[in-house]
């Protein structure tokens, strides 16, 4: 009996790449400005995007998913030249957008357009709908006589019809959904190949979110568009995207076909994100184990795997370092009374300095009214009390010395993206 060919194979579609991002980095220097110096962070560097590779196939929707500070928006902005590219290249139609400038760049850039999160901020309140949507045509030198019909066509495409009703309106006359339609009309009017949509529905009321997504899907088919969908909302990404890249501290930690990411998440961070999604169905089991902590400061990412301090399954090779000891002590003091905290804290002379330490070992020094033995006892107590903590996996040795307690950590490794089944994942478990 003949069967239908299996079209749902999750291998990458063998079509041409519309946009090919290679080893792209966006770094912001903190040293050069007054603020950085003021806070003593001179010379610091935020690696907002750190060596990302991503190839967009024609017609697909790729989701960039992560928390604030994951670098997803910086990556999106870099594709439009709105964020400084420190390294890497963005290949588009045989040219590298990262190295082009001036007129050549402007000509190519019209093919990559953006839809912003907040339509109220993206539209000039003093411009009518017609002026806003005409603007790109004016900038790219389309003759005045040809502009009107193209504006009308774009507005009709985004559903703002009858067009006469909207042309002379100002953003303040429009609802949130209508404003986002105007922003989309402005983005498609130059007939782009790629649309970067940065949280296009998160500011909208839930009753219209689905409508805007539907519109975007229709436009994709009609206009042969390729999308990059930037979001922290995994539920909409699941519906909207063909492929999903999970980002953490400037890097892609897992990337693959949407179904595979949702059905068989590999990276512990992806699993945590999936578990945290609140679901309106009351019959679904409630979120139980939650990830602790928050995404760390990108100017000083954790060593090894940058996710290791929050990871529920981290082990010895994940990159443990002195500041993890401080976090472990802080976690311990969350479970003690203020008086115990006062006593224990007063025994350590150099807690604040330790968090600034790098390297694979540190010395916890006793204050004048305590001894190294007291600190060894404190560490044993903390370890005994919090059996499940992953931190101790990474501690190779605790030794009492005249000056204090030396804690030596297992050497860490920085995981790189590796193929695992149908996805790529950056985690030492694989």
């Amino acid at each position, binding site marked *: 009996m003949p069967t239908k060919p299996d079209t749902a194979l999750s291998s990458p579609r063998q079509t041409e790449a519309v946009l090919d991002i290679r080893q792209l980095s966006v770094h912001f220097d903190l040293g050069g400005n007054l603020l950085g110096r003021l806070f003593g962070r001179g010379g610091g560097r935020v690696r907002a995007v750190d060596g990302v590779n991503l190839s967009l196939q024609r017609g697909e929707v790729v989701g960039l998913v992560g928390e*604030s500070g994951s670098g997803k928006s910086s990556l999106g902005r870099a594709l439009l030249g709105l964020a400084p590219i420190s390294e890497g290249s963005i290949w588009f139609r045989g040219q590298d957008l990262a190295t082009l400038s001036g007129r050549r760049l402007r000509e190519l850039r019209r093919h990559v357009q953006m839809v912003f999160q907040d339509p109220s901020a993206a539209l000039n309140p003093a411009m009518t709908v017609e002026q806003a949507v005409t603007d790109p045509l004016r900038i790219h030198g389309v003759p005045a006589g040809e502009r009107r019909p193209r504006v009308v066509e774009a507005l009709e495409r985004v559903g703002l*019809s009858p067009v006469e009703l909207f042309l002379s309106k100002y953003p303040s006359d429009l609802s949130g959904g209508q404003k986002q339609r105007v922003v989309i009309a402005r983005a498609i009017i130059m007939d782009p190949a790629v649309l970067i949509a940065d949280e296009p529905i998160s500011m909208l009321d*839930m*009753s219209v979110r689905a409508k805007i997504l539907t519109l975007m899907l229709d436009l994709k088919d009609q206009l042969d568009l390729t999308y990059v969908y930037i979001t922290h909302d995994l539920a909409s990404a699941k519906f909207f995207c063909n492929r999903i890249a999970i980002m953490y501290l400037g890097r892609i930690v897992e990337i693959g076909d949407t179904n595979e990411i949702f059905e068989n998440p590999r990276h512990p961070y992806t699993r945590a*994100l999936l578990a945290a999604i609140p679901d*309106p169905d009351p019959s679904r089991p409630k*979120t139980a184990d939650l990830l602790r902590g*928050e995404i760390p400061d990108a100017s000083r990412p954790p060593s090894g795997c940058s996710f290791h301090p929050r990871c529920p399954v981290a082990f010895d090779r994940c990159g443990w370092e002195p500041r993890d000891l401080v976090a472990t002590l*802080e976690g311990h003091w969350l479970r003690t009374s203020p008086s115990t905290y006062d006593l224990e*804290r007063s025994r350590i002379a150099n807690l604040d300095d330790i968090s600034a330490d790098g390297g694979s070992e540190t010395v916890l020094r006793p204050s004048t009214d305590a001894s190294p033995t007291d600190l060894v006892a404190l560490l044993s107590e903390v370890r005994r009390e919090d059996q499940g903590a992953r931190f101790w996996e990474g501690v190779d040795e605790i030794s009492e010395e005249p000056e204090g307690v030396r804690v030596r950590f297992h050497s860490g490794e920085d995981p790189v993206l590796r193929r695992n089944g149908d996805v790529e994942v950056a985690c030492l478990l694989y």
Partner: protein
Amino acid sequence: MTPAIEGSPFDRSTPVIDVTDLRVWYGTTRGAIQAVDGVSLRLSPGETLGLVGESGCGKSTLGRGLMGLLPAGAKRDGQVLFRGRDILRMSEREAYGLRGTSVGMIFQEPLTRLNPLMRISEHFQETIAQHEPDLSKSEIRERALEALRLMGIPPTRYRSYPHEFSGGMRQRLMIALALVLRPAFIVADEPTTALDVLVEAQIIGILNDLRRNFDTALLLITHNLGIVAEACDRVAVMYAGQIVEQGSVTSVFGKPQHPYTRELLRSTISLSTTGLNYIPGSPPDLIDPPPGCRFHPRCPDAMRVCAGHDPVQTVRQGGGSVECWLSGPDELIPPGGTERLEREEIGVADEA
């Protein structure tokens, strides 16, 4: 008339907050905006009520109205009993004393509510000293550290400044500040909207612990139905200034009886979403709302009676209440009233 709170596990105790027929309106040059129009609800100790609806439905105004925190020019009417005393009829001085110690509020944007020049310790000292001037500095510190501990903020951070905290930590800090006086009733207005999923989930966990540990009654205002399902016992669905359906979360989300609740659930994009649905049109202008049921112009099930007669509150199957002619009472529907309402199609021109 106060709706029954059947379906809630807290029927036994007396309500902390008991709202009857609350109305709040703002005067404008075009006429009065009826932001809250006849709302009645109750909360028992340890109970969390989710208040959901689209932007502009009046949910934030309702939350602020319960706190007595309305902007100048807002008028209100009805009864808001906090442990038997009517907040709306208190002097400004009495109401001020009540806020913080007995009722607290958590806002959406934590950074705008913290003073960047004050250490965390000073925020606590200020908050506590206003309401309990007799506490010593070390007693204040002990209380503050306890509140921070509950929020997962280690005592090492007590002397930090707000800018040294991440967004999620600031929101937890705000909750700690709201909690330090142990209020019996808290209004949280979109407390997680500005936060990421993981931090949002942490905050929801914290709010859940809160009611278990302190018997705090919580009104959680949100547009996120998923959060209501995770964190609330009961839910009230608000549309155009009125509560159209309320009851236990399991019952209301599991078997919605008001078409608005049903459509709102259908338009929510969740992990189980396989097709996109949305509600056509937009919520009405509250200066001149449509006659009859305010949802009838957008309602896929609207009947002729809905366009001309205000719906009557009835007891829902499964407990709680609903205001919709589809749920009856049938004897009040005029002859021919159940026929399908014919109307024009709703286009993008009317979209939200």
